[in-house]
């Protein structure tokens, strides 16, 4: 049993709302364990980031994320589609994906888990609850859980 290789954890946030992103950013920065993160504003951009196409050709610009925080309803390529594509890609599918969305529609929840989402969180509107959720999420994935090795570059 070898202990997992310690790597710099990183987070990809797919979120089109600036306000939501600002809140996320605010809580992430205040987190006791700050995690470096990248932001894509839509699904198309997220896929470009992951496949390192276009502006994201440089691995330095687009490092492999340890965790993806995915909004379900960004413009252009839909969050569900992004999820499906990632989970069908042998190389990318091990990256845990946390769906972080406003929708509490049972159908969305069902479909995301079907596609292989690792966690589904309905964005709480309550400020304190939101803060708590994000902090606990980071703590869980980056302190409690053991993440796989990063996908190959």
């Amino acid at each position, binding site marked *: 049993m070898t202990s997992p290789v310690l790597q710099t954890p990183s987070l990809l946030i797919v979120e089109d*709302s600036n*306000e*939501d992103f600002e809140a996320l950013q*605010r809580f992430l920065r205040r987190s006791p364990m700050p995690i470096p993160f990248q932001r894509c504003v839509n699904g198309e951009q997220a896929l470009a980031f992951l496949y390192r196409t276009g502006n994201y050709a440089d691995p330095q610009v687009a490092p492999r994320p340890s965790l993806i925080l995915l909004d379900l309803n960004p413009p252009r390529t839909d969050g569900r589609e992004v999820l499906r594509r990632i989970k069908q890609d042998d190389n990318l599918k091990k990256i845990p994906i946390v769906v972080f969305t*406003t929708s509490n529609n*049972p159908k969305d929840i069902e479909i995301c888990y079907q596609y292989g989402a690792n966690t589904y969180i309905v*964005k709480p*509107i309550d400020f304190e609850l939101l803060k708590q959720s994000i902090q606990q999420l980071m703590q869980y994935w980056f302190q409690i859980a053991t993440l796989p090795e990063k996908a190959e570059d």
Partner: protein
Amino acid sequence: MTEQKVDLTNCDREPIHIPGLIQPHGVLLVLEASTLKIIQVSNNTGEWLGRSPEDLLGQLLSMLLDEKQMIAIEQCLAGEFESLNPLDLCIRRGSEWICFDGIVHFHDGVVLIELEPQTADDRKNFFGFYQQVRGTITKIQKAPTLREMSQVVVEEVRKLTGFSRVMVYQFDADGAGSVIAEATDHETPYLDLRYPATDIPKQARQLYTLNWLRIIPTSDYQPITLTPPLNPLTGQPLDLSLSVLRSVSPLHLEYLQNMGVAASMSISLIQDQKLWGLIACHHDSPRYVPYSIRTACEFIGQVMSVELANKIANEDLDYKMALKSLQTSFVESLSRSEHLIDGLMQLEGKLLDLVSATGAVIWMGGTPSGELQSNRCHCIGTTPPQSTLPALIAWLKPHLHLNLFHTQSLSALHPRWESDKAIASGLLALEISKVHETYILWFRPEVLQTVSWGGNPNKPVEVQGDGTLYLTPRQSFERWQETVSGCSLPWKPCELEVVAELRSLIVGIILRQADELASMNIELQRSNEELDSFAYIASHDLKEPLRGIHNYANFLMEDYGETLNEDGVGKLQTLVRLTQRMEDLINSLLHFSRLGRAELMRQRVNLNDLVYQVVATLTMARPQNAIEFRIPRALPKVECDKAQINELFTNLISNAIKYNDKPEKWVEIGYVGDIQENAQEEPLHPTVFYVRDNGIGIPKEYIEQIFQIFKRLHGRDEFGGGTGAGLTIARKIVERHGGTIWVESAPNVGSTFYFTLQAEAIA
């Protein structure tokens, strides 16, 4: 044989075809078929032939007739004797020759020769009669209606025969007859009089269909016996079914005498091998009609019989044309009106005309959701009292066949309607819808009230010396009166047909209206779905900016709380609180819109377990409140979406708990009526569940509002708060299950929410 007493109690069994007697105006010879040996004769041979019966018996026929006549008879027996009858037979009596119309029949193993003496002018008139008959036939064929044809016939027959009264007598389905045409010089007309069926017994009808013509030249004749009395070949009475001389039942003679008829003749009218009616001739003094004229009359009767079908079809055609135009106005009226009953009510008189009824009832029972709704009924014309109608409808239901029921005598079927027989002896009922309990009933009065009857009801009963009732038409009428009491005129087949057609018209209209409704429903459903998904998207998208406002207000408080004064912080806090409230509303809206679209997961759910669970959960959440929960009897198992029904009970019960200011609160959960849990078929009416409380109640004017989304009757923070979507969601759940929900409430007393979880079955 002759001694046997015949009276009204046994006249239906009287063997009138074997009376052993003949009328005195002719002679009967019975011959053994193989040898033409005389074996039986009437006892008046001496009078007509100058030879006693004893002289004739055992002799060959050739003793009486010459060779030429014998050949004629043999030819007659070998072939169509009907076309050869009558034979011109002359028999020597001493020095003179007497000429007879000889009528030969072969029947029941013996040859019957009946001899009727010819009168001087018979032969020479024959061709004149023929010309007359030919003219008559043309008139019969040209007559446009049954009545007019009958009138032609009675006038022509009267001209031919000279009878003082000639009538066409028509039987109805039950054998009662009525006079539909008459030619007479009598002052008292018999036209349109009706006679009871018992006036002509069954076996007489049978003989009428065998013999097309029957003549009684003298109604007070002395019948002639036969020698020997029995047919020597069979040892049985001689079968005189086909005999023209056959003696008439004493009962019939008495009947004729009581009517003052001294001579009569009748010609059968046959349709489809059944006795349709008679051409009846009466004369007030004895009258003999020679065979040749009788043959002409019989021919007229046969032509008329053939024409009957045509004329009746025409008659029906006229009636049907009238009915068709009535139907047309029905359809117009019914399709114009929004509700069936309105349309039918506008038709009032026409509804009666349609089947010649004197009263009608349009009955509209409960609607699918409306067990509780009262029956509506509309009466036209003369009908039984409204109070008796529910019982009548209930009785009627199992008696319907192909949506129809008809009777001439309702009181005979059930004594309960005896009291209404004067106005409702005849009932014709049409079922439009079993489920909606929609019926049309037509009534006809007792026939005694409506028609004039033959016979004289006021003539006193004659009692003989020995105390027995003396047979008179009066008595016959009375006996008959007993049997037809509570009877209406029969419903005609074409009337039943038109009513059956009326049903398909009405059903057609109802279906068309239902189609229109269905397409409107589809449209409505589509727009509802659009609205639902709009609500879903809108509420989803609303949440994002809302969360932004909420977060930014919090950011402000976090980052600049130090620099803001108390008032500024208070306003930010209000902003945060408002966003929270808005989120509640949006969530409710979202939930509601999702309910509208989510698929129902129907399964068999034990409501008893479910309700106990709901109660347990609710009491756990409010341990401080002491509430008495009443479940008077175990709730049944129901096919439903478990999660949704859980929410439904949760909403209703928590409302019942919430809106209650009594010191001792209770909530009762139960259902109305019986449960047919294991019924094979789906029950017609769904179970009605209820949740009842002794809470604050709802003022009448707000009852309609409570199911509207976000409508609240109380302050936001009174009675534990809430978004005001609970009942809207409850209603949506009930409607998704095909049921309905309604409330009965009295302020300060409490409310009862009723609901069903399935649609009313529609047959």
